[in-house]
Each structure stands twice: as structure tokens, then as C-alpha cells.
């Protein structure tokens, strides 16, 4: 009898310990970040995240993609009209455009976390904060900052592990490209340009994600060097013609502009004699991939690598 009781006691103890272990393990990722968390967002603002956010509003398509990539889809209560990836994002209610979100609708959703972007700095973030809402602004300017922004979102939503996994995956894919392109000498880097718009003619100059993509994919942004303006720089047609880049890439699918820049590059008679036209090295890439500072930027990098160095990347 005593032996049986002892055995029962031991089993109960073991069961209790086991239960405690299991439950604490399950909670561990959630409680890794002490709540409330004091973080600095990418606009340099100090924000206090009060609790594990359950009602998240995204004010930018790139933010939406990050949220879905971290598995937070059921916590998203609203997105913008332009949030179209993944397809499930289109089923979420919308609070307006990217540069014109409807502040009242955002507030009406009663969010406990709002992910904004740089352009919301002056007109959107102040009224939201005045209502006591938590707003974090993501503003990555380089690929590394994109990864940092993903990790930041993971930290405030308790999805650090998913964020770390995603970051590692992205780093790996980036390394596959930069390993080969890093070994190229300057002569092996063809002059490449990314054309944003055709009238006026605008290219991506230093300080843009596209410029970094070109460099990492083993190209040289020589057209950009002819303009002292950073960001998206206007350039005259004759400068562009004289620069004669070997590879031209245009973004397509932007708003309702569709592929006008691509049409311009492929059919403008005055560009008929350029190297890119004659060697058939004019490429297009979905603007959603190359213009969004989100997880799919590595896919843009891989495409750029295939465009610029087809001999190295299939």
C-alpha cells in the first residue's frame, strides 16, 4: 500500500512538473520581450508598446507583407487599398490609400498597434498619437534596414523567433548572390540603370533601394553618377543616351501607369542605337517587388542578379 501511494505521489509529481514545463515552454516565446516594451522606431521616435498587440493596422503594403510573413495574419484588422500580397491581404478591410489613409477609420478599428511609414510622419502619425494610439514607423533605406525592420516588428509582437528565421533566410539568399558578385572586378560590372519613369525621365540614384540592388547584383549605376541628386533623379534624355547603360531595368505595374517606362525603353526611336536595345538587355520587374521595403526585396535582388549576370545566375 505504501509503495503504491509512493508510486502515485511520484507519478503526480512527475505529471505536475511535466505540465509546468510544457506550459512554460509554450509561453516562452511570448514572454521573451518584457511588456511594456520601450523601442525606438526607424524614424528615431521612442515608442512604448503597451501589451502584446492583438489588433494591428498596417498603413503600408511593405508593412503588411512583413506582418503576414511573421504569421500575424489573424491579428491584422486593417490594411491599405494597395496591400495586395499575399492574396489574403486583399480580404482584409481597408482604411484608405497609402499616402491618404482615413484617420477616422483607423481610429474606429480600435488598434493597439499601427505600423506606419516615413510619409505619414507629418500628417498621419500626430493625430493618431493624440488619440493615445501606439504607432511605430518603419523606414528602411537599405536592405539591412529592411531586415532590422522585420526584427523590430517581431520584437514588439512577440514573434522574435519567426523574425529571426525570416531574417536568416533572407541573409542566406542575399549571400548566395553577393558571394558571386562580390568577386567581380569593376570591368566585370556592366553599367546598369533602373528607370522609374519616362516623362520626365527619372532613374534611381544613390540612396535608393534599387541602387543598392544594382550594386549587390554586380552592376554599376553609372547613369546615376552623372546626377548629383540622390534618390530618384531626373535626367535629360541626352545624358541618358550618352551614358549608354548596358542593362536597363524598368519597374512595371505601378498604379495605373502599367508598363509605360518599359514601353518607352523598348520602342522609343531615339534609343534604337543604344547597347541595351541592340543586345536585348532591357528587363522589367514587378514594381511591387522592387519598390517595397519588405521581405520580397530579396526576390528583387535575385531577379536583378539574373538580369545583370545571366551567366552567373540561372
Amino acid at each position: 500500500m505504501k509503495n503504491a501511494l509512493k508510486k502515485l505521489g511520484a507519478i503526480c509529481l512527475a505529471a505536475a512538473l511535466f505540465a509546468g514545463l510544457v506550459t512554460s515552454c509554450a509561453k516562452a516565446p511570448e514572454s521573451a520581450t518584457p511588456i511594456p516594451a520601450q523601442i525606438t522606431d526607424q524614424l528615431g521616435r521612442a515608442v512604448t508598446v503597451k501589451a502584446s498587440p492583438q489588433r494591428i493596422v498596417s498603413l503600408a503594403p511593405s508593412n503588411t507583407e512583413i506582418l503576414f510573413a511573421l504569421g500575424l495574419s489573424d491579428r491584422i484588422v486593417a490594411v491599405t487599398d494597395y496591400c495586395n500580397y499575399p492574396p489574403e491581404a486583399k480580404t482584409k478591410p481597408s482604411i484608405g490609400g497609402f499616402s491618404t489613409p482615413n484617420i477616422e477609420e483607423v481610429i474606429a478599428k480600435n488598434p493597439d498597434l499601427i505600423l506606419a511609414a516615413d510619409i505619414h510622419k507629418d500628417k498621419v502619425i500626430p493625430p493618431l498619437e493624440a488619440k493615445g494610439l501606439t504607432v511605430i514607423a518603419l523606414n528602411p533605406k537599405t536592405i539591412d534596414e529592411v531586415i532590422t525592420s522585420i526584427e523590430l516588428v517581431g520584437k514588439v509582437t512577440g514573434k522574435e523567433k519567426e523574425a529571426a528565421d525570416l531574417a536568416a533566410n533572407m541573409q542566406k539568399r542575399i549571400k548566395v548572390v553577393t558571394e558571386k558578385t562580390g568577386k567581380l572586378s569593376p570591368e566585370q560590372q556592366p553599367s546598369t540603370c533602373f528607370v522609374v519613369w519616362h516623362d520626365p525621365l527619372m532613374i534611381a540614384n544613390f540612396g535608393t533601394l534599387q541602387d543598392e540592388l544594382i550594386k549587390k547584383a554586380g552592376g554599376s549605376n553609372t547613369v546615376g553618377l552623372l546626377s548629383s541628386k540622390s534618390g530618384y533623379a531626373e535626367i535629360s534624355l541626352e545624358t541618358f543616351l550618352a551614358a549608354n547603360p548596358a542593362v536597363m531595368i524598368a519597374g512595371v505595374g505601378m498604379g495605373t501607369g502599367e508598363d509605360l517606362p518599359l514601353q518607352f525603353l523598348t520602342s522609343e526611336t531615339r534609343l534604337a542605337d543604344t547597347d541595351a536595345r541592340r543586345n536585348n538587355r532591357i528587363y522589367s520587374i514587378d514594381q511591387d517587388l522592387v519598390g517595397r521595403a519588405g521581405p520580397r526585396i530579396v526576390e528583387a535582388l535575385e531577379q536583378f542578379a539574373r538580369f545583370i549576370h545571366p551567366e552567373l545566375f540561372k
Partner: protein
Amino acid sequence: MTSNPVPTLPNNTYLSGRRKRIYSLLGLCAALIVVVAVATSIGSVKIPLLTTFQILLDRLPFVDISPTWQSTIATIVLEIRLPRVILAGLVGAALAIAGATYQGLFRNPLADPYLIGVAQGASLGAIVGFLLPTAWNIPGFGIIPLLAFIGALLATVIVYALARVGKTLPVTTLILSGVALSALLGSIVSYLIISSGEKMHGIIFWLMGSFSMSQWSEVRIVLPYVAVGTAVIIIFARLLNVMQLDEEQAQQLGVNVERLKLILLAAATLITAASVSFVGTIGFVGIIIPHAVRLIWGADHRFLLPLSVLTGAIFMILTDIAARTVLAPTEIPIGVITAICGAPFFLYLLRRRKKAIF
């Protein structure tokens, strides 16, 4: 009996003035050719002057120079710069003579080619063109110039219809209707700009006027309108002189005033609409160039009109040079340059003459 000598004017001022103007006309023609050649050799890409002249001369029939230049340089000179310079000259000439015509018709020094709604009508048409889905795009130059042209003409027709009183077209009513319709269209334009989203930059760029991306196809379309319109207006130059008297007086002197108004308005509006549709609304040229020409050469329309054509063309080409070289390779909107350069020069002329010129 001694025969009476033919009375001559003291100092023969009329004839000497006339001679001076004819020489000026010839001088300006020569200046225009020089300016065109110079403008074609200036740009953000450095091309030696000699090469540019060789490329231009090579295009003349009977002249054959074996090319020592790359085809890219020839493309830049012949396909990018030359059509741009010629279009700038055409538009400058068109706006100047249209402005002179409006000032003569309305007998008002503040009249400019945009008085009766052409600018706002064209702007509205262009913005509609920007906002339409691109499936409607005409390859080559897009649908925007066409819609701008239609908008400009529609606005003028509406103003004309509103201002007509029976068979007459009172000038004051025309101006007032034009101002009112311009204000209405302008408010619609403003609303559309605000709600255009990501197209805003392109639209505002268009509205400020620009000759960048000009091509020969545009020159080929604008040239007939401007040539025909200018010819029509210059034919009626003497009648326009007579119109400077009261309309009643002119009517009594045998001028069919209403018909003349209609013809001149139509011609001036057509050439303004054609210019604005391709390059946007460039201000200042239409109002200031005719006044500057009056200050220097007098108000006789038989000389005022052709001199305005030449002066307007030269002025526009020069400002276009400034627009594309001052901050190369970025381009300044040409409307900014025309105002910055033209206004001080005009004020200087005004001060120098110190007399009423209208």
C-alpha cells in the same frame, strides 16, 4: 507757273522708321538662325561646336561630310536637341503673335493668349489624359496632347457661345466670360491635382511647361497650325491697325468688325491651343513679348506681328537653353525661367522709355 513740290514729311520720320523696322526684321531673322545653331550645340552632354555644325550641315542636301562622330552624338543633336529647339521657337513665336493679336483685338494691354480659357481648358484636358487608364494611350506621344487640344478648343467655344450677343461679340463680355470660365475650370483642375495621388508630380510638371522629350513628330503637328494661323493673322495686320480705333469707327471705315474678330480669335486660339497641348502652359511670353516689341519698334501691327514672331521665337529658344543648362542634368520648368528673365528686362525697357506705350 511753278509746280507745287510734293510735300515731304519733316525728317521723313515715317520712311526712316519703316526702314529701321525692315532692317530689324532681317536682322532678327539672321539672329534666329544663329540662335538655333547655338542652341543645338548646347546641352548637358559636351559636344564640340565643330562637330555639331558638321552634323547639321551634313543634313543639308548636296552637302556630304563623312561622319567622324558616333551615331549617338548624331542622335543627340538631330533627334533630341534640334526638334526641341525648333519646337521652342515655334511655340515662342505662336504665343507671342497670339498675345499681340489678343492685345490688338481687345485693345487691352493685359490681354494674353490665355485670356479666354485656353490655358485652363488645355490643363483640364491634359489632367483627364493623365488620369485615364493607359489602355487609351496612343503610342508615340500619348493621349494627353489630343485631350489638351480638345479641352482648349472646347473652353474657347463655350466662352464664345456665352459672350455672343445676337450677331455681335462684345469684347468686354468676352473677357468676362473668359475669366469666369477660367476660374471654374481652374478650380476643377485644382481639385483633380489634389486627388491625383501618385500622378501629381507628372501633372504639375506638365502644367509648368517643358520642352524636354520634344520630338520631330510633335514639331510636324504643331508647325502647320502655327504656320497657317500666323499667316492668317499677318494678312489682317492692317485691319488690326484700324481696329485700334473704336469698333464703331472701324466699322464705318469699312472693316467687317465681327467677321474680323471671329477670324483673328479663331486663328490666335488655334495656334495657342496647338502649342500648349504639347508643351504645357508656358506663361509670360504672350503678354510681355508684344509689349517689348511695341516699346522698341512701335505699335504698327504690320511690323509688330512679324517682329513678335521672331522675338518670341528667339526668346523662347534662349530661355529653353537656360532651362536645361543652369542645373544640368536636371531641368527647370521653362515657365519659371520665362518669368525670371523676362520680367526684369521688360521693367528695364519700361523705365528707359518713360512714356506710355499703349
